[in-house]
Every structure is written in structure tokens, then in C-alpha cells.
């Protein structure tokens, strides 16, 4: 995110009360998340230690420190889906998208994004669509009865290309 844009955001927030959170929210709105470089620059410009900005970004649920992809794929982790092979679906998606799950984020949520920022893969508790297990959701649309073989077809609808 350009430094001019950050300077512009800072200039519009003069009142001390509520200032920092509002600036961070605007940066996130513009960039989709809070890029590290933006926080480093912001820290210098407003004289607040980077550690304090990072503390805010990790305390409040709304802030994302990882970029979020254009399409969000959520794999249901409910019991029915689990028994019907949700772990296999998750691995298959990791392979197809070229994402490797090394460690979960500190808040125990699992969320990974492709390098081209096209897709974010995460998990959720239960959608309540158990009769269609295993279930995935892409941008809010629910797809059921999934098998690893069916996944490429679904992904292609969202602009995914085989590598």
C-alpha cells in the first residue's frame, strides 16, 4: 500500500479519541488486511511503537495480518463431514491450491492463502448441511457430496487453473 495513501488516512483522523483504531480499520479496508510494511510506516509517521500496533492488531478480532484471497473456501469440520472424509477434502484442496499447512495461527483458526491472493482456505465448525457431507462453501455458496475428484470442477468456476 502506497505511503501517500497512509499519509492521507492519517491526515483525516485528527481527534485523538478513537484515532488509532480508525486508522487501522481504514488501512485494512483499503488493503484487505494489515500489511506489515504499512504498520512499520505508520509507526514511524505517528510515533507509536510497532509493538503497540502489533498488539492492537492481534488483540482485536477484526484485524487480519494475513492477506485474504479473492475467494474464500471453507471446509466444514462437523462430525458428519469428518466421518465422510473432510480431512481428505482439505488435503486435496491444499494440493490443488499449492498451499502447505505448516502451523495453525495463534488463535487456533486455520486459514491459508495462495500466493497470487486468489484463494483463502479455512475451516469452520458446522454449516448444518450434514445430509450433504462432506461440505465445502465457496464465497457463501454451499457445495455438498464432495470427493477429491470433483474439486477441480468447482474451483474452475472461480478462475482456478491447473498448474
Amino acid at each position: 500500500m502506497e505511503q501517500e495513501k497512509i499519509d492521507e488516512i492519517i491526515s483525516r483522523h485528527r481527534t485523538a479519541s478513537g484515532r488509532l483504531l480508525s486508522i487501522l480499520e481504514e488501512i485494512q479496508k483499503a488493503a484487505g488486511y494489515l500489511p506489515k510494511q504499512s504498520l512499520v510506516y505508520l509507526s514511524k509517521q505517528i510515533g507509536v511503537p510497532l509493538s503497540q500496533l502489533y498488539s492492537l492488531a492481534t488483540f482485536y478480532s477484526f484485524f487480519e495480518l494475513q492477506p485474504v484471497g479473492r475467494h474464500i473456501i471453507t471446509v466444514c469440520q462437523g462430525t458428519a463431514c469428518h466421518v465422510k472424509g473432510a480431512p481428505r477434502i482439505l488435503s486435496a484442496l491444499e494440493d490443488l491450491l499449492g498451499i502447505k499447512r505448516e502451523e495453525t495461527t495463534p488463535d487456533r483458526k486455520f486459514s491459508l492463502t495462495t500466493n497470487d491472493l486468489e484463494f483463502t482456505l479455512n475451516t469452520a465448525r458446522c454449516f448444518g448441511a450434514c445430509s450433504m457431507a462432506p461440505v465445502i462453501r465457496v464465497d457463501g455458496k454451499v457445495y455438498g457430496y464432495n470427493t477429491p475428484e470433483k474439486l477441480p470442477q468447482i474451483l474452475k468456476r472461480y478462475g482456478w487453473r491447473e498448474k
Partner: protein
Amino acid sequence: MKISNLDALDEIKQQGLKKIFPGKPRIAVGLATCGIATGGDLVFEALKDSLEKRGLDVYLAKVGCIGYCKEEPLVNISFPGKPLLILHRVKERDANSIVEALTKGDVPEEKALCRIEEWDHLTSKLAYGSGFENVPRYSDIPYFRYQKKLVLRNCGLINPEDIEEYIGIGGYYPLFKALKSMSPEEIIEEVKASELRGRGGAGFPTGLKWSITRAANGSRKYVICNADEGDPGAYMNRNEMESDPHMLIEGMLIGAYAIGAQEGVIYVRAEYPKAIERLELALQQAEEYGLLGDGILGTNFSFHITLAKGAGAFVCGEETALISSVEGKPGRPRPRPPFPAEKGLWGMPTNINNVETWCNIPIIIAKGGNWFAQTGTDKNKGTKVFSLVGKVDNVGLVEVPLGTPLSQIVYEIGNGGTGGKKIKALQTGGPSGGCIPASLFDTPVDYEKLKEAGSIMGSGGIVVMDADTCMVDTAKFFIEFTSDESCGKCIPCKEGLQMVHETLEKITRGEGTQGDLEVIEDLCDTIQKTSLCALGQTAPNPVLTTIRYFRSEYEAHIRDHKCPAKQCRALITYRILEDKCTGCTLCARVCPVAAITGELRKPHSINPDLCTKCGSCKDVCKFDAVIVE
């Protein structure tokens, strides 16, 4: 144009009244968050199209929400000289028939919920007219009959995006009276006479808080509105801000003048975008009309309000955490004393009140503190808005005098349990409150009496539960929430709540052991008595009240590995009744794990080792052949 004298204010009032009584039919669509979610905005567009196509001269407006959420989308229609009619469950497709009927000076009969002949906005009375005798009166509708609208006096009747309608019904006259003819001390005396108590949950006397802040030493003073409404199931403040933002602004103006504050902050949770939008617009309009900013109403009283947004932390509803958040820090509570009245925002004397507390102020000034104190009971004066939700028939926002018994709210206003089912308990006060069993429903909504019962008034959420609710699961649900939202500063809350949660999880999985309840009670006692802030101090309430009133459910889980409400998956079994099953094979086909076997037209059976208790089979069975044990 900036208002600085009574004539100017009167002039705007007339302009506003002309919009409410435009001398032609007026259609106003309820467009608060729920109204929009049920399709109200589509109704608005459809009506607009239909009116344009027919070239009809009708005043089309938006209003907020009158609180009868179950019946949304709601549309108000008024004809000159006739009562205001409220239409309910209006869909997009009804637009044409409504406009058709409009041309004949009528409304589609089956859509009419009730008529309003006159309405007391408390700052003025409006008379609509008589007629439409076949439509029930507003006061005939049980949902409305037992309510008393003080805070919600304007909601659903005026346009929240037009300050002139607010002034039209007498709004900002209390501010005028306060600034031009009352001293700050007189205002505080009036608030003290009203015996108004904080509506955020703690119920601290408002007048007393104001006088402490006024007397405190500081080069600057602040007033804050706590609009962080985080209790799941509570949305009173949201409606108050979306449907009538000016009453909040007016309340804060009067308070700032009385206390001697120059700056105000409204801290709204980020999850309320509509409320933020409406507040931003209202603040802008108030400034344009000289009612906010420098030299208000032509006096030398200046007051500015900043809107600060939350960022997803329930703990920021706690006043010292809120202050930290506004100061650009994580929302970790601070020890009290010192209290914010002495040392608050930026170290200065600060008065924090909940949205609803501020909303009561204009009427206290308009009608007087003594008038206000006529409603309610001993030490509990005025009304309270509650969100009545859960397994109750009439879901919505309800405003009743304090001291009203819970039974009246649930049975007479709420019309009893959903689907006619018997109500088992209700939960008040959100995650900080407790579960009250049906046998105690004669308990009035009273700060002290609810505390005696083990719960709290809280911000006003009432969640109704029936026999299908497992109280152990409910306790686990609330503890999981508070544990997730804990700020992590003090160990009893941070570690203690997680330990309670893990033990409850164990119990609902059927792995509970003798002694678990004692450990939970021991931990809960310490968490209550030693936590730094109210989040930790009250988090054990749902657990302790459910143990107190529903111990048998806990014992069934621990001792017998059974869930009486048949909710906890590990403790229930799905079974097909042979004598009811027709062998239609529908259940077998939907079962995600192929646990059901059976031939066509022969009784089917579920393999308990494979069954995941997802409930799909029960959902699709047309013969009630699937039971849960």
C-alpha cells in the same frame, strides 16, 4: 441553517410536521437492520416503482423499527385525517396491491396489523384521526398493550435520517429548555429526582454519577456513550441508534452541559454498520442545524462528538476497557478505583453511560424527574427495553415498566413458547446473567430481585428456552463465549474460565466424573470473587444458576451419561420405530454416513456405531418414525 432562538426552532418544527402530515397519503417503510434483512429495502423500491408508474402523489419515507420483529417487514400508511395504519409481513409482491388500495383511500385488509389514532411522543402529542374501525387498535394488540414506550417513543414512526422529523415531534426542545433556562445543577437535580439507573446492566444511579463527575477535578471533561452492546441476543441499543439517533445525541448534549464536558465519544461496535451510518448522518445534521459543535443554539456552550468504532472485542463493553480502546490501546480493563468519574479518558473525569440511559434524558427534562419516577417500582424507576428472543412466539423488542413480572413479558407479550411448547427457563443478562426457571417467572424485572435469583438485569436480553434446551449445554455455550472473549489480563478469568469450559465439555461428551461439579463450583466461586472486571466476575453466573436450578440435568449427564433434553450428541441415540416406519428409504438416502439399512417397504434401522446424530433422518421422515433417546 443554524438555530439560535425559539422562533427558528418552531419554524423547523413546522417543516418537520409537514413531512409527517404532508396533506396527502404517506407511506413509511420500516428500515432498521431487521427490516432490511427481511426484505424491507426491496419493498421500499417496489413501492417507489409502483408509485412512479402510476404517477401518484404520495410521500414515501423511511422509518425505523417499532420493535415487533416477528411481523416484519412493517409498513406505515397514513391518509390525511385518518389513523396511521401499520401493515405487517409486507413482501415485494404486495407493493402493487398496496398502491392499488391506496388510490381508493384504503389498504389491503389482510395486511393491516393495527391502527394508531393518536400517539404520545412525550415531547408532543400527535393526532392522526379516526376511521378504519375494522382494523384493531394498537392498544388491542397484546404485544403492544402491555408495553410502555418511553425510550422507544419515536422508533418506527419518524424518519431517523431526517432531523426535521425529530424536531417536528418536539425533539431538541428539551435541549433548548436545558441550555436557555436551566443551570447544570438544576439539570442534575432533575436526573436525581427521576431515580434513573444506568441501563447498561450495573444500574448505578445516573444523577449521582453525573454529580461526581461534575465535582471532579480536571482541566477537561468527557462524556462517553457505551454502544458496544456485545451480549449475544441483545439488540436494544442497535434499534435505539438506528431508529432514533437524535434522542441519543440530545441526551449527551444535555449531559455534557450539566457535567461540564467539552467532548463526547460514542463507542459503537463495528458489527453495527447501519447504526454507525445513521449516527454519522445524524451528527452531521445536528451540526448543520447548530445543535452540536461550537456555540450551540447561539449560546457559548460548545460540545463535539466523535464516533469511535470497536474492532471485535466483547470486553470493550467494560467501561475501563472501552476507555483504553478509545485511547488506542488493547481493551484491557483497569483496576477501579480510580473510577472514570475521577480519572477516565486521557486521565480526565469522564461520565460513561449506556445508549439507553442517555436516551431517557430528553424526556426527563421535558416531563420532569418526578413524572419519570411515577413509572416503575421502589428503587426501580422508569422502563427498560428488552430483546425477547429464543423459543418464544412473539420475538422482538419490548419496553415495559421496571417491576413487570417476567411471566407477563413471556406469556402475555411474548404469547408463550414457540409452537405452543412449554417454557422451561429464560436467561437474562446475556453471558453475565443467569438462567431463571419457569417456577420463578413471577420474579419482576427489578435490579435487586433479579440479582437475588442469581441473574442480573444486564443490558436487556431475554432468551427463552424450552424442554429441548439442555441446560448443561447452555452453560457450556456461555462459558465458551466468555472464555474466548476474555482479555487475558488476570488469571482467574483467563485460565479459570477455560478450565470450567473443558470440564463442561467433558460432561457433555459423557466423560463426566464424580467430583466434576465440585471443581466447577470451586473454580466459579474464585473466578467470581477475584476477577479484575465484570466479565470475569459474572461469567460464572450461567454455570452457577444452571447448577442451582437444574442440578438434576448435570447429574443425569455425569452419573447416568444421559442428556434429558436430548441435545448432547454423545449422550443420545437415534432410533427408528418399527411400527411407524413405512420403509420409504428416504432416511437411508440422506444419511451422510450410510448408517441406515433396510429394504424397500420394510422397517429400517440405524446402526448406532456409525450414526453421527446429525438429525438429517429425523428432519426428512414424514411418519415421525425417528425418535431420539
